[in-house]
């Protein structure tokens, strides 16, 4: 029996009636038209479908859309503005952190969470932070470079936000 779900995706309210079995990743791709979140295994291992749900990295193939009801979801499409890439996206570009690009959105979302939790990670901590995401092209070295490259910019950006917010 389809049931209604209402959630915010990249700050916009979305509302649909879906079968309870519809996975969050399919909801994002097929109902919201946000195809940047990719499906690589449907079993929660490859991490290509990683999104942020209320700020926490979630593999969107391991969650039903109805479980995300009321949540704030951020996908890869929600990171950049038209004018500027998110620092993590910029880092991946600068450091050749991607080849085929299929794992990249999930990898970037995992890195965004990592840097939110740990603004100055060591290389080992970066590797731990993305260990839930598989990449078959790059061999990861440039991905670690990319996240390290992004870290200071992310830290600066959040410091500025806190300043604005008067924290």
């Amino acid at each position, binding site marked *: 029996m389809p049931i209604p779900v209402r959630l915010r995706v990249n700050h916009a309210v979305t509302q649909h009636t879906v*079968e309870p*079995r*519809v996975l969050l990743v*399919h909801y994002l*791709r097929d109902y919201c*038209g*946000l*195809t*940047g*979140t*990719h*499906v*690589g*295994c*449907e*079993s929660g*291992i*490859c991490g*290509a479908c990683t999104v942020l749900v209320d700020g926490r990295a979630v593999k969107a193939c391991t969650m039903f859309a109805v479980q995300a009801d009321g949540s704030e979801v951020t*996908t*890869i*499409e929600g*990171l*950049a503005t038209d004018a500027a*890439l998110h620092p993590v*996206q*910029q880092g*991946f*570009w*600068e450091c*050749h952190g*991607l*080849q*085929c*690009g*299929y*794992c*990249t*959105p999930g990898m*970037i979302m995992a890195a965004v969470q990592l840097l939110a939790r740990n603004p100055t990670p060591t*290389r*080992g901590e*970066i*590797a*731990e932070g*993305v*260990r839930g*995401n*598989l*990449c*078959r*092209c*790059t*061999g*990861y*070295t*440039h*991905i*670690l470079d990319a996240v390290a490259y992004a870290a200071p910019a992310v830290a600066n950006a959040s410091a500025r936000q806190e300043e604005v917010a008067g924290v």
Partner: protein
Amino acid sequence: MSDTTPYVGRAMKRVEDPRLVRGIGTYTDDLRLPGMLHAAILRSPYAHARIRAIDTSAAAALPGVVTVLTGADVNDACGAVPCAAAIPDLKAPRHTVLASDRVYFVGHAVAVAVANDPYAARDAVDAIDVDYEPLPVVVNPEEAAKPGSALTHPDLGTNVAFAQTVAGGGDIDDAFRRADRIVKHRLYHQRLTPMPIEPRAVVASYHRGEQALTLWTSTQIPHLLRTLLPGMLNVPEPKLRIVAPEVGGGFGAKLNVYAEEALVGHLAMRLNAPVKWIESRRENAMSTIHGRDQIGDYEVAVKNDGTILGIKSRTIADLGAYNQLLTPMVPTLTGLVLTGCYKIPAVKIDLVAVYTHKMATDAYRGAGRPEATYLIERLMDVIANELKIDRLAIRTKHFPAPSEFPFSTACGLTYDSGDYFGSLAKAKQLSNWDALVAARDAARRAGKLAGIGVSTYVEICAMGPSKAMPAGGWEWGCVRMEISGKVTVITGVTPHGQGQETSFAQIVADRLGVPIEDVVVLKGDTNIAHYGRDTYGSRGTAVGGTAIVMCIDKIVAKAKRLAAHLLETLEDHVVFEHGVFTAPGVSTRKIPIAELAAEAYIAKNLPAGLEPGLEASSFYEPENFTFPFGAHVCAVDIDRDTGRVSISKYVAVDDCGNQINPLLVEGQVQGGIAQSIGQALFEQTIYDENGQLLTGEFMDYALPRAVDIPEYILGSTVTPSPVNPLGVKGVGEAGTIGATPAIANAVLDALQPLGVVHLDLPLTPERVWRAISSTVAV
């Protein structure tokens, strides 16, 4: 241009990336066409069974289901899945799109359900009732090769697809007569699953009025598909458009013509509606090609001073149940470069290729060269240990000198250029070899298991001369100066991560003297890139890039004629430099190429006989392959209690000729080494005795993760290839070729004090721990 620093040679970030990091690239699964239906496929749970009956009625009655079809419904309309390998006397089963009366491997497609929603299509697949009668299963390739074995395809009367002697160079009998000793060794090259992160995906749309079919597919080879699908679908080539949109990794797995590509095309025509099929990960593991899987008994004829006189082997290759595009050809490639970097005068390989009830093997990244390199590099270490000769010395003893190139091998190849001493010396230097050895010895004295491995490799790339390829090894390209002065480049290669939208733009911008921002590279759509032989075998830049260079040469030659006319001088007086045509000493006028392009299209003032426009296309036919090479050094520590291998140092020196974009070269090398780490330490495709696939998910088939990767020290030497004007050789497969044996040799060096001579790959903690335990226990 004010800045005239060439783009070629610069580490430039990619033009491909902004769309990909934003998540707005279009992969096949991202396509949404009006009225699109969704297909799902029922696959056999048995490795070998007779299909007694299929009942699709319950499935067809489910809500949203449009149709459910079996082999009886579609196999006559779709031709057989093609194999392009020309192997004399090949015995081959007919490979239908869906199974007919039998299934021959777990994952064999049995029926297809089409529905208006992908979930409904999967429901329908679950509701199909198949009555299977299980039959005897063939899984062990050595048993399969024996007379009296159960048969994979009973109607063939044998499991042997072909038996042939490959690479029969030199006088092998004389080599073994003259030998002081024969070193014997058995080597198994395990079966691997390529596992691109994007599984296969196909969308087809039929345009009834034009009777034309468009097929979007996650493939490396849209052009080969356009050549081969007409024979399956009865759609003439000019009416068939194949598009490879963003492709999420290939590694050879998408260098194929798959049953599903024909099936989805057929469904779109049959149902007169767009149809999408997306492979699941489990399907990818069981019904997309596997790689490797060769067992060889090797004998090496050696003199006591370490001189290698000859190598012979009996190799059994497991083809799986069917021939995919290149299946039977791949094991023959192993013999081509078996002599590696070495002067080994005689080689003989008796190859037996057998069918078993498994998914087909085919070209996985490296295809033949990783096998050969692993074999020769393991053998080098085994021989060195047996004769108590230094591992580096036995290698350098057999290197051809740089002056000996072009170097002809016993396997019948001519290596284009090389400096094997140079790459090994650099690897020694970067690894601080003597200190590394001292540290290993100190660790050993402290009771630790530490080892160092080395591998030197040469590979065969830039595939290739057409006479050596199944269906043309040339490449096509087109360069068009637009009336606006922008440049459109169209290539027949189909990059899917390699970055040629960037590296080709670098080449073109330099040679036409235009800003790189003005160059756009198009690929992957047969309506745009009319001809091509696509991307595989490290051929993109060496073959595809050269076709582009030929186009530019034609454009510049034509532009010079026009410039001479406008400058009122002779062509011989016209100079083209940094994008500007001048005639020094004749005219002070400077004509930028963009202005000239406009003149060429406006066409009011052309010299007599000159066609308007400024566009050229070219087919480039390579005279030879190219032969990149390198030397890798790996140091490992092994935990005695767990058997876990840690790589403490990794040095790779690769020579791929001239580098267009060193950043992309580095990315290719790192990615390749990571796949080697997977092969050496983690990965193996395993079927049990019933032919059940035990490695059908990422849970069971262990890809390396970020935490498994060591810090690399990467170096390169540059020995340009004389084969093409760019001097490039190719780098896409280097890491998967050079690294596996270096890691294996390091692990076995660490275990040598325990008396362990050899372990098969992958060197998992369990396998290493068992080896340690068995030696400690006694």
